[in-house]
């Protein structure tokens, strides 16, 4: 990942700063969701629970009240049963159907004995005649026998009984300590006698004490006057405890005729001042009231128990809610976190990891998209890298090529530079551009050679100032250069005032002889002007030129950096010798030259010359003028 590496530090920088921020926000989603779930479910639980609790509480309370009421009713029923039993016994005894006339005392006695046997609550039974006088008496504790001196004709028991129905006396206490009730029933018929019975109410105590009212509760009976007549604690009764001040008793007494529905168990205080749940019911016919009391705490215990249970359940449920909320939030947040982590990784440049989310929902889709994006990024990265690599390579190659080229150009330039020294510029360019230096290799060819130098130069250079010499040379060379350039000659060498130029090499020039001659002529005319100027300056100089043609060996000689492209052969000598022989303004040519240019030039014969290096004298000619006489401007 070369390219990416270069960029990586940058991207990592940005992801780091983001990562720090992300870490700060980390857990926020989880907390949010967990809190949301917990609050939501918890809220519902609490609300529902509270509502339920309140309603149930009401229900329970009503229920408890009803239960207490039922208990009171049951107690009343039991006691009514007791009274009813006695009533029944008495009625059966007194009103037993008879066939034969009035009852004899013996019969009555027998009946009463049976009554005594069958109704253990009866302590005494006695018979009052129509005048209210006791005629018979049977007692368990006192002597039998009528108390003749007793006149009960005005006694309520006598009077009320004769009015009809069973008379119930108010509860009285025998011996100041025991509750008794007198019941009286009259015979049937006109002017009846009355049977009275003393009923020991201690037996009601049995009933009352057996009535179970929870664990701490009790039932007790109160008469019409608010006197306690039966109580599980018999001593309370025997002590003649007055309970009429208790609120529930007061209420019950003031509204005895209230219907069943209106009677409601209520919170009251018992004789010890404790709070109790009290219910009551009336016992008719005696007109007593039975109370059922239960300590409030005990009565409400189921209620409290229920509340406690509900509360405990609520706490457990809330606890479970919290746990579940955490778990749920985790489930939801985990894939999101995975996505976040994956995104961070991708931002950090790690493109090779996949985000794994398996929730089977939109989050999984999202993860897939991320992974897809990651792989696309990877691909584009690698493509980019490849391209960059490629480009770099290409660039390097181009560089290389460029360098090569430049080197080559430099080389070429150098070569051109070098070649230009002795080759015609066009030729030099041609050779360099073609890159073909083969034509510079040694070879034999027929060439035309032109030698020229300045007459009297040596003595001039000795006598004149160097500056003057250089000046003269400079002018001379300028003309020379122009001539050579114009006629495309190849310079063999320069030597001060002398120069050797040949034609037909390296480029073939079919009319090389003509070219050579024309150049010579041009030179003569050009330099002629200079000569006149020099003469005026006081220098006596002239130009001599020799032209020859023949075979020579041409090639480069010399060493590295100082190559000369020159011609070796007798033709060069010939041209040199001819030049030496030429006077100022003369162009001496050999006969072969003449042979090649004779239509073009006018020449004059100069005879034969004996030239050094040549065995035979050489006929030479002087070129007077070109027949087409192109006069160079001076």
């Amino acid at each position, binding site marked *: 990942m070369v390219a990416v590496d270069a960029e990586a530090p940058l991207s990592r920088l940005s992801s780091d700063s983001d990562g720090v921020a992300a870490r700060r926000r980390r857990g926020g989603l989880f907390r949010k969701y967990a809190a949301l779930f917990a609050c939501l479910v918890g809220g519902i639980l609490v609300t529902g629970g509270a509502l339920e609790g309140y309603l149930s509480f009401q229900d329970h309370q009503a229920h408890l009240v009803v239960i207490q009421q039922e208990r009171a009713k049951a107690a009343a029923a039991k006691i009514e049963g007791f009274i009813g039993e006695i009533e029944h016994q008495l009625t059966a005894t007194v009103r037993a159907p008879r066939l034969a006339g009035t009852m004899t005392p013996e019969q009555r006695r027998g009946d009463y004995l049976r009554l005594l046997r069958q109704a253990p609550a009866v302590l005494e039974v006695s018979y009052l005649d129509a005048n209210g006088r006791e005629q018979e008496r049977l007692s368990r504790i006192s002597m039998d026998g009528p108390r003749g001196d007793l006149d009960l004709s005005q006694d309520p028991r006598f009077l009320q009984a004769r009015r009809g129905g069973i008379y119930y006396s108010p509860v009285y206490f025998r011996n100041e300590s025991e509750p008794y009730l007198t019941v009286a029933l009259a015979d049937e018929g006109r002017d009846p006698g009355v049977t009275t019975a003393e009923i020991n109410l*201690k037996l009601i105590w049995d009933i009352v004490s057996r009535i179970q009212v929870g664990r701490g509760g009790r039932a007790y009976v109160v008469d019409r006057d608010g006197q306690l007549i039966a109580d599980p604690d018999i001593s309370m009764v025997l002590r003649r405890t007055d309970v009429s001040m208790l609120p529930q008793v007061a209420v019950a007494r003031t509204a005895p005729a209230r219907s069943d529905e209106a009677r409601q168990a209520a919170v009251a205080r018992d004789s010890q001042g404790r709070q109790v749940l009290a219910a009551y019911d009336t016992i008719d016919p005696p007109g007593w009231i039975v109370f059922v009391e239960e300590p409030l705490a005990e009565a409400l215990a189921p209620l409290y128990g229920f509340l406690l249970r509900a509360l405990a359940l609520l706490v457990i449920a809330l606890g479970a809610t919290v746990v579940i909320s955490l778990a749920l939030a985790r489930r939801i947040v985990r894939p999101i976190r995975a996505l976040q982590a994956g995104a961070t990784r991708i931002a950090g440049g790690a493109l090779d990891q996949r985000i794994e989310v398996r929730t089977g929902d939109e989050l999984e889709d999202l993860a897939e998209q991320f992974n897809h994006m990651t792989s696309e990024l990877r691909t584009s990265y690698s493509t980019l890298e490849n391209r960059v690599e490629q480009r770099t390579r290409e660039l390097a190659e181009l560089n290389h090529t460029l360098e090569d080229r430049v080197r080559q150009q430099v080389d070429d330039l150098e070569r051109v530079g070098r070649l230009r020294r002795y080759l015609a510029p066009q030729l030099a360019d041609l050779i360099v551009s073609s890159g073909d230096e083969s034509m510079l290799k040694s070879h034999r060819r027929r060439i035309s050679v032109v030698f020229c130098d300045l007459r009297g130069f040596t003595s001039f250079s000795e006598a004149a100032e160097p500056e003057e010499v250089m000046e003269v040379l400079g002018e001379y060379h300028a003309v020379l250069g122009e001539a050579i350039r114009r006629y495309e000659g190849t310079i063999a060498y320069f030597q001060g005032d002398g120069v050797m130029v040949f034609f037909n090499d390296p480029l073939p020039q079919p009319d090389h002889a003509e070219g050579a001659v024309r150049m010579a002529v041009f030179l003569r005319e050009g330099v002629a002007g200079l000569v006149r100027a020099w003469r005026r300056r006081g220098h006596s100089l002239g130009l001599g030129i020799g032209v020859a043609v023949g075979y020579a060996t041409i090639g480069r000689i010399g060493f590295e950096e100082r190559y000369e492209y020159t011609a070796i052969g007798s033709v060069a000598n010939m041209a040199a010798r001819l030049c030496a022989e030429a006077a100022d303004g003369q162009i001496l040519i050999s006969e072969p030259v003449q042979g090649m240019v004779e239509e073009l030039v006018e020449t004059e014969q100069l005879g034969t010359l004996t030239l050094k290096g040549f065995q035979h004298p050489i006929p030479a000619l002087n070129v007077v003028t070109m027949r087409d006489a192109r006069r160079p401007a001076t």
Partner: protein
Amino acid sequence: MLKEAIPGATTISVLWNPSEPVNVVEWDAIQGASTTVGVRLLSVPVRQTDELGAAFATARQGSDAICITGGAFESNNSDRIVQLATQHRLPAVYGFREFVAKGGLMSYGTNAPGMYRRAAGLIDRILKGAKPSELPVEQPTSFDLAVNAQTATDLGITWPESLNARVTDVIR
């Protein structure tokens, strides 16, 4: 009741311990009742166990039947008393059923064990801090007439119908 059982009795002895307040009360009550019933009473006070023999001898001589008061002394010496009564062929009425179980002729009284249970309850309350002066006196609620059939037969007594109706226990 003794008079009813033995209509022919004209004199009835009463065995009682003057040292016991209970007996004193009972003796007074019996005295009051005797006129109504129509019998003469022979007081036979006994203070010690060893006086019992002489007492019964006196009773046998001077009366037709004997009434044994109900007290601790009598209860403690129940065996002896019953034995003496049988020995002297004296019809006796006792205060408690237990005498009849041992061979006495008849008894009319309250349920002694029940009374004792009630007493235990009272003692419990006193021990728990109740003041005896505040505790009410409780009267008995049930009265038993117990009769020993065998003794009756032995003594040759025909049981009157009136008493039959009131009998609660028959011991054979």
